[in-house]
C-alpha cells in the first residue's frame, strides 16, 4: 500500500513538472506581451524592456522554465536580472524555496498570494462540500427508495431546476435578497476563525457555500439515486433480504455502502476542482480566494501567479486522486494491493 502511494506520488511530481512546462509554452505562444502588462499604464519602450529584463521574459522559454524549477527547489531573488539587482539592491525581494515566482502586478511573491487566498477557498469548499453531500445523498436515497412516486419525481425535478440556474444568479439572489433586502443574515465578509471564532467563520461562509452547494447538489441527487437503484438490484442485496434482514438494515449495510463507493471518486475530483474553480462565487461575494486570484491574474497576464495556481490546483487534483484510490482500498477489500 505504502509502496503504491509512493509510486503514485512520484508519477504525480513528474506530471506537475510537465504541466508547468506546458503552461510556460502556452503562455509565450500567445500574441500578448506580458511585459507590456506588467509595466503599467505609463509605459515607455525603455521601461518595458527594463520590466522584461526584471521578470526574465527576455530569456528563452526553456531557460525561464528551468529557472522556475530551480526557484522551486532553491528559492530565488527578484528582479531576475543580476544587473538590475546590483543597480538597486534595496528593491531586491528574496523568495525562499519553494518559490513559485513573484507577481509584479501585486508586488508580492506568489507564495504570499496563495497563502492569503488559500484559507478562503478551502473554507468555502469544505462548507459547500458538507452541505451538498449531506443533502445530495439524503435526497438521492429518498428518491431511490420512493422511486416512481411523486416524492421521487419532485426531488428529481427540483434538483434539475436548481441545476439550471447559473451560479452568478443564485449567488446574486442570495446576496441581494437574503442578505441586503430582507437582512436575514449579515452581508457576508470572510472572517477567519482567529478573528470571529468558529461561529463567525461559519456564518461568513453560509451564503457562498449554499451557492456552490446548490449547483453540485443537483448532480449528487441524481447520481446517488442512480447508484442506489442499481445497487438495489444486486444479487447480494437479494441475499440480504432472503436472510430476513429488516429493510433499513438492508438499505444501510448492504445497499448504501456499495452504492456510495463511486461517489468517493466524484467527491475527490469535485472538491479539488472547486478549490480554484469557485471563480464566479468568489467574485460575486468579493471573497479573495484562489478563484478570484486566478481570475485577476488571467486578466492582467500575470504569468507567475498563473503558473503558481496551475501547479497548486494540479497538486490538488493529483493528491485527491491518490486519496480517492487509497480510500477505495479501505472501502472495498477487493482493491487492496499487496
Amino acid at each position, binding site marked *: 500500500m505504502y509502496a503504491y502511494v509512493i509510486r503514485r506520488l512520484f508519477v504525480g511530481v513528474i506530471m506537475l513538472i510537465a504541466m508547468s512546462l506546458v503552461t510556460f509554452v502556452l503562455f509565450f505562444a500567445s500574441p500578448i506581451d506580458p511585459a507590456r502588462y506588467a509595466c503599467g499604464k505609463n509605459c515607455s519602450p525603455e521601461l518595458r524592456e527594463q520590466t522584461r529584463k526584471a521578470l526574465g521574459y527576455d530569456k528563452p522559454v526553456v531557460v525561464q522554465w528551468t529557472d522556475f524549477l530551480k526557484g522551486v527547489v532553491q528559492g530565488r531573488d527578484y528582479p531576475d536580472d543580476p544587473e538590475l539587482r546590483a543597480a538597486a539592491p534595496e528593491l531586491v525581494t528574496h523568495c525562499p524555496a519553494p518559490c513559485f515566482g513573484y507577481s509584479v502586478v501585486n508586488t508580492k511573491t506568489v507564495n504570499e498570494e496563495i497563502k492569503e487566498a488559500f484559507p478562503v477557498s478551502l473554507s468555502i469548499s469544505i462548507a459547500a462540500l458538507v452541505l451538498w453531500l449531506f443533502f445530495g445523498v439524503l435526497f438521492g436515497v429518498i428518491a431511490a427508495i420512493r422511486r416512481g412516486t411523486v416524492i421521487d419525481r419532485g426531488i428529481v425535478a427540483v434538483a434539475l431546476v436548481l441545476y439550471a440556474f447559473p451560479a452568478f444568479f443564485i449567488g446574486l439572489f442570495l446576496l441581494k435578497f437574503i442578505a441586503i433586502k430582507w437582512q436575514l443574515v449579515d452581508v457576508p465578509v470572510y472572517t477567519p476563525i482567529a478573528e470571529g471564532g468558529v461561529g463567525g467563520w461559519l456564518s461568513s461562509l453560509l451564503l457562498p457555500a449554499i451557492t456552490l452547494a446548490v449547483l453540485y447538489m443537483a448532480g449528487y441527487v441524481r447520481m446517488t439515486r442512480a447508484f442506489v437503484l442499481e445497487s438495489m438490484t*444486486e444479487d447480494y442485496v*437479494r441475499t440480504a*433480504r*432472503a436472510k*430476513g*434482514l429488516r429493510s433499513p438494515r438492508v438499505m444501510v449495510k448492504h445497499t448504501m455502502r*456499495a452504492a456510495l463507493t463511486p461517489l468517493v471518486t466524484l467527491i475527490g475530483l469535485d472538491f479539488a476542482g472547486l478549490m480554484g474553480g469557485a471563480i464566479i462565487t468568489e467574485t460575486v461575494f468579493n471573497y479573495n480566494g484562489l478563484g478570484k486570484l486566478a481570475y485577476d491574474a488571467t486578466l492582467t497576464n500575470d504569468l507567475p501567479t498563473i503558473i503558481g495556481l496551475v501547479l497548486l490546483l494540479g497538486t490538488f487534483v493529483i493528491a485527491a486522486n491518490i486519496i480517492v484510490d487509497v480510500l477505495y482500498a479501505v472501502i472495498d*477489500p477487493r482493491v487492496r494491493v499487496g
Partner: protein
Amino acid sequence: MAFLSVRDLKVHFPTVDGIVKATDGLSFDLEKGKTLGIVGESGSGKSVSSSAILGLHRKTSAMVSGEILLDGTDLLKLSDEQMRRRRGKDVAMIFQDPLSAMHPYYTVGNQVAEAYRVHHNVSKKVAKARAVEMLDRVGIPQPDRRVDDYPHQFSGGMRQRAMIAMGLINNPSLLIADEPTTALDVTVQAQILDLLQDLQKEFESAVIIITHDLGVIAEMADDVLVMYAGRAVEYGSGNEILTHPEMPYTWGLLSSVPDVTGDTEARLIPIPGNPPSLLNPPSGCAFHPRCAHRDKVPGDLCVTTLPELAPGTRTETHLKRCHLANPDVVYEQEILPEIAPELVEEKQA
C-alpha cells in the same frame, strides 16, 4: 396436507407494455425430507415462483396471488413483518452465482453470522462461533481462519459452500436452491450436490432445486416439475418423468442435450424457435409454435385451447399439460429410438 402446498400461484408484473405473467397458476406439493426439481429455460417462471415463496417480490412491482401453505400457514396472507421473521429462518434460499450473491465488502463470517443474528438474539461473538461451526459443517477447511476472509478470497466452490452454510444456519424446514451449481465446474458441482444431499438427510429439510440441467435433476430430485412460459407442463415423480415423459417439451429437453455415453453419430434434435414472450404468450398451448407433434392433435385444438394439467396415460400422479391422446406410444415409437437407441435394442432383445 403436504408440508409445503402451493396452490394456483400467480406472479404478474405490470409493465408499460402490459402485464408480464411470469408465473401463471402454479400448484405443487412437497413433503419434508423430499426434493422437488423445477426444470425450465430462462423466462419459464421457475426463479420467479421460488422468489414468491420467499416473499422477495416487492409489492410495488409484482402482483402475487394464490396460496403458499407452509406447514398449514398461508405465507401470502402474512404481514410483511411476519414474513420477514420467517425468511431465512423457516425458508432459506441459495442462489446461482455465489460471487455476486455475497456482498464483496464484508467478510464471509460477517455475512454468515448475520443470517444467524437476525433470528437469534445473541452476541456477535456467539454468532461468529456458530458461523465457524457451520462453515466447518459444509466442508470449508480451517474455518476459524477462513471466517475472516472476504468472498473474493474464496474459490467458486468454497463460496457456494459458504452460501449453503448461510442458508442452513437457522436450520430451515424449506430450502430453495436456485441453479446452485450452474456457475461451477463439474468436479465442484459433484461436491456441492453431494453436500446438499448429505445436509438434507441430516436436517430433514424439504428442498426445491431449480435448474435447467436435467442431469442435476436426475441425481437430486424425488419429484420433477417442468415449467414452460409460466406454467407447469409436466409434473410427477422424477423416475416417471425421466423414463416416461409425456409432454413434447420434456421430450425436446431430453433429446436436445448431448450426453457422455450416447451415440455420437446421432444429430442433436433441437427444439426449434425461441422461448415465448411472456408479455404476449402464444394462444392455447404456449408450446404449440415449437411443437413437432401438433399435427397428431385433431383440428387446431393446440392453438385455441389451453390443455389442462391432467393425469397422463400411466399413473394418476403423473400430470401433463398436452392434448396428445397417446403420448406414451409416441414416446416409445418416435422419441426413445432417437435419444436412447441402445435402450430400444435392449428391449427388443
